């Protein structure tokens, strides 16, 4: 038996989350096949074939695959699911949209957001905002899984010599269509794969003040994130949100500025290697998970920090 992974890609590049899924698949220990769906995507398929550890790449081409519509992608995966004991997705917005459909169409349980592979049928996943870790075992004939990318290293993008095989597209839904998107433009590293993340909370007071975090992020080559409170208040867009229901990050350094540290926020960042908290409230729960805490007014501390990073 072997493992099938749905590849996520944009602008001709494979998303880093998919590379982490390949590492999770390697831990399961079977031959790994990647499924690439796109309107062209030969370039993506070639990159997929070069990933270390990949045995074969399946390429399905259709104009409808230019957008990641769940109906179309789930039909495609199910069409090519025969012979696979494991089907893996990244636990991204796109992966979460598709994985449960595939599980339901195959009449098996979905296994969300795994952080550890204990064996070919046993996995660990966080529940209750990461306040507990459930070890689950599946007796289903095929295990349909989404993988938390921060829990697995990225597979090497070179070294593989897999073949690319063209496969048929599946049924295209006429009930759903893509209208448009508003994507944030940023030169910064992507939030979930950045090695340093600088995040702001309600204490930032408004969106303009996030420029102080941008300044520090620029000096550290960091991504900028935010707490739910800051997003709900409209300081920054939704894609900045770190937490139980937003993005999960685990960088080498997480700098939390003006963030109190609600459990829902901690769920999204407490696996960071080093956590720094700057908050004027010494009772803020964020200090309980911080390796280094600074009790200070952020409007004093951030300019000082910016200057200190220059020296």
């Amino acid at each position: 038996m072997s493992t099938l992974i749905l590849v996520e890609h944009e602008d001709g590049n494979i998303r880093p989350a998919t590379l982490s899924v390949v590492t999770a698949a390697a831990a399961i220990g079977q031959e790994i096949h990647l499924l690439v769906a796109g309107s062209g995507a030969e370039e993506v398929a070639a990159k997929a074939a070069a990933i270390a550890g990949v045995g074969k790449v399946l390429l399905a081409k259709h104009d409808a695959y230019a957008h990641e519509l769940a109906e179309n992608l789930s039909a495609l995966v199910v069409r090519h699911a025969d012979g696979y004991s494991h089907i893996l997705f990244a636990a991204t917005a796109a992966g979460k949209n598709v994985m449960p459909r595939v599980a339901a169409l195959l009449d098996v349980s979905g296994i969300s957001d795994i952080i550890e592979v204990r064996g070919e049928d046993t996995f660990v996943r966080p529940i209750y905002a990461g306040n507990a870790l459930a070890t689950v075992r599946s007796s289903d004939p095929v295990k349909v899984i989404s993988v938390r990318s921060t829990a697995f290293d990225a597979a090497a993008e070179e070294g593989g010599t897999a073949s690319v095989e063209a496969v048929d597209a599946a049924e295209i839904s006429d009930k759903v269509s893509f209208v448009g998107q508003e994507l944030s433009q940023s030169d910064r590293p992507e939030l979930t794969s950045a090695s340093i993340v600088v995040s702001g909370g309600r204490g930032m007071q408004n969106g303009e003040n996030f420029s102080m975090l941008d300044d520090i992020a620029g000096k550290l080559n960091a991504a900028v994130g935010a707490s739910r409170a800051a997003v709900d208040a409209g300081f920054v867009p939704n894609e900045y949100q770190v937490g139980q229901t937003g993005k999960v990050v685990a960088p080498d350094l997480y700098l939390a500025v003006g963030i109190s540290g609600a459990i829902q926020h901690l769920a999204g960042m407490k696996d960071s290697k080093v956590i720094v908290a700057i908050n004027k409230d010494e009772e803020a729960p964020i200090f309980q998970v911080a390796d280094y805490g600074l009790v200070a007014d952020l409007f004093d501390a951030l300019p000082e920090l910016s200057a200190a990073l220059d020296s």
Partner: protein
Amino acid sequence: MKIIVGVKRVLDYNVKARVKADKSGIELANVKMSMNPFDEIAVEEALRIKEAGNADEVIAVSIGPVQSQETIRTALAMGADRGILIETNELLEPLAIAKLLKHLVDREQPGLVLLGKQAIDDDANQTGQMLSALSGMSQATFASRVEFDGDQLKVTREVDSGLESIKVTMPAIITTDLRLNEPRYAKLPNIMKAKKKPLEIIPVADTGVDVSSGLSVVEVNEPPRRAAGIIVKNVAELVDKLRNEAKVI
């Protein structure tokens, strides 16, 4: 048009989950339970759609133990018209929940099903997608805005790189994200009125739905704790520690 809205009874979002001593799950005895916050948003959206004249009836559905009636009553107090509880004492997987919801969809024929994008207990984020796959109703997850356009809906979705909008044909399933709306509080007179609204209870066995699961929980553990950190005196000390002790900048 009818709207079915799913409401799940979960550990209150302000209560810290504690793992049971026998590692079988989370301690739920004598702790505050509430409606899943994403489901509150779903109820609110259903009510707004009805208030705008785009729906006639809002049906609040829960699947769980007898106490889930309280969660349904909360939805009725917010303004839902009637409730249905599929009663079970088992902790069901999302696939079983989706099959039970499909059973109700087949019976009630709603134009819209509104569900939270995930429940804050198991954090699975599966049920809406599964119900769409099983029922053939269109899927629009992680919604931050819903607009009516004839027999279609334009749904703005929160995705990893920003916002995406799609058009789906009704009947459709929408799962709610945080920015869709701010749920109302139930007013006292409405809480009293909600006690008189119809609430049907269906034992899970009466549905004839197979709720067996291939997934079992081996054990539940607490996550590893972080070692205690230190408080630094000033920015200079912080930068020094990050450069020379942690070596991360």
